[in-house]
């Protein structure tokens, strides 16, 4: 049994009488101890997918099975036992910490709400967690604004860890940080995964960050998964033109590669006006008539990945 098994998941918003499908018919799994990368442009629905899985945003169809149990129809108190087992690390280390609470309060409240241990037990857990994320214990009595971005992200990670979850959704955890700090935080996440046996759903717009990290990659475009497979397969042999463009967008010193690079034209279309047929066709240089008539299904390739493109 997979730790997380998402099937035909859909998240839609109603806006001015139109239905906007931010996540449209997405299926994937995350195994125990596995790291799955989720890549795509800003606005393609990756964050919404992450939040839907954690039940922070309501889903409109499909199943979210967490260790076998479908949590999509649950609400209120029935969700609380599952909240403990999956947590989130946020992109913005400034907005994700309550500015009015000390680090200790931030961590202690979570333990209190879930009634985990008495004062000594809670103190032990807080100290252990703060040591684990590489912050001194003196940090506990400080407020978030007294820390730098990287330190704050460590506090955010500590908060995600305090309830000892099994799955952590990392929503672009390093994209708001300086490059030098990014590596530190990524290393920390790798160490934590190894020591605690965590599973990650790692959301990023940057293929080069995902490279450090993930076992499998899902490429998302306009609410759908267009290609998925192991990182090595995708990197060496991208079959979907969109994946190809994302990989080519990673800066490289290779002049030869630069000349042949595929650069995406135009912007992501609005999710309330999805093009007919293949949703990538307006920006695809291989697009033909068939692409506007027929929506390509996610097909399994002999090379190991699954691709949603007629010409893959």
């Amino acid at each position, binding site marked *: 049994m997979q730790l997380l098994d998402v099937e035909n998941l859909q998240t839609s918003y109603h806006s001015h009488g139109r239905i906007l499908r931010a996540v449209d018919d997405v299926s994937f799994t995350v195994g125990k101890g596995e790291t799955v990368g989720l890549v795509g442009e800003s606005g393609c629905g990756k964050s919404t997918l992450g939040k839907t899985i954690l039940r922070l945003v309501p889903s409109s169809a499909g199943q979210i099975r967490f260790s076998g149990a479908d949590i999509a129809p649950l609400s209120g108190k029935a969700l609380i036992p599952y909240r403990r087992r999956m947590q989130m690390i946020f992109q913005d280390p400034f907005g994700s910490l309550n500015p009015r609470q000390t680090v200790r309060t931030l961590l202690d409240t979570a333990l209190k709400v879930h009634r985990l241990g008495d004062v000594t037990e809670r103190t032990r857990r807080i100290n252990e967690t703060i040591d684990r994320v590489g912050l001194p214990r003196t940090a506990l009595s400080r407020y978030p604004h007294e*820390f730098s971005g990287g330190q704050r992200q460590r506090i955010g990670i500590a908060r995600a860890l305090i309830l000892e979850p099994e799955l952590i959704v990392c929503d672009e955890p390093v994209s708001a940080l300086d490059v030098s700090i990014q590596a530190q935080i990524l290393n920390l996440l790798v160490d934590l995964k190894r020591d605690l046996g965590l599973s990650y759903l790692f959301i990023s717009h940057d293929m080069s960050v995902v490279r450090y990290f993930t076992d499998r990659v899902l490429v998302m475009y306009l609410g759908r998964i267009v290609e998925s497979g192991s990182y090595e397969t995708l990197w060496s042999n991208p079959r979907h033109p969109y994946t190809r463009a994302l990989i080519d967008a990673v800066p490289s010193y290779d002049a030869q590669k630069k000349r042949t690079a595929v650069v995406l034209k135009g912007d992501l279309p609005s999710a309330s006006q999805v093009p007919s047929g293949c949703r990538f066709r307006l920006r695809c240089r291989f697009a033909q008539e068939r692409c506007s008539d027929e929506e390509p299904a996610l097909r399994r390739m002999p090379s190991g990945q699954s691709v949603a493109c007629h010409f893959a």
Partner: protein
Amino acid sequence: MSTNMTSLPVTLLAVPAAKNGRLSAFLRQPTFVAGLLILGVVMTLACVADLLYPGDPQDLVGPPLLWPFQKTEFQLGTDSLGRDIAAGLVHGARVSLIIGFSAASIGLLIGTLVGAVGGYFGGLADNVLVRVTELFQTVPAFLLVVVIVAIGEPSLKVIALAIGIASWPTIARLVRAQFRSLREQDFVMAARSLGYSDTRIIFVEILPNALPPVVVTASVMVAGAILTETGLSFLNMGDPNVVSWGSMIGDGREMLRTAWFLTALPGTATALTVLALNLIGDGLNEIFNPRMRER
């Protein structure tokens, strides 16, 4: 897992020492300090009123219409019935402050609850609460107070309640706007993902962050409530059993040309107190301004 990752040591990063700039930020604002001083004096006088001027300030204690400094016994003179004006001012300060603070508290309580619930939950609850708020805002506040006091009895309790009921919409709108922007913040998302209840999120997570502009408005609300009570008493709709600044102004109105000090003294007291509260409000606004904190 990739192997080419540079292995930077996870160092115990230097955490900056706590800054203690709040107090100096307070004191760098002369107008704020002046406001605090004036309000402090008024509050002290109100507290020690019974020691300074024991007995009922409505007692007739001397000859009528003594001018200030005419007799050492009555430093600020007496009114047309021979009541000591200094005693009236000091006891009136107590009434004004009690009304001001209790009315503002009532308004704060109602406004915060309505604004928080509407702003946090949104949807139907928000729609209904916004309509109710607008309904209250269409009625002139002073008229509403007059009507409520006329229906009830002119006691301090009813007056405070009436002013509170007339003034909550401002707070409700402010709190609602704050909640609507704060509920989208990631720290609220995080609280939800940690399984916190809505009540905890509203009162423990969001409310402390929504308070600064509310505190600023509250200080101005106290001033407004004092003015409203003064207006009521001037119209003879105040509590007849107590002396307030408004009733003193009302009583002196007839003799405005011959004994102007009867209205000028309580008028000055009102103006100074309201000014002090407004200065405090402005000062708090500056202090809560996030750009101030960086300095």
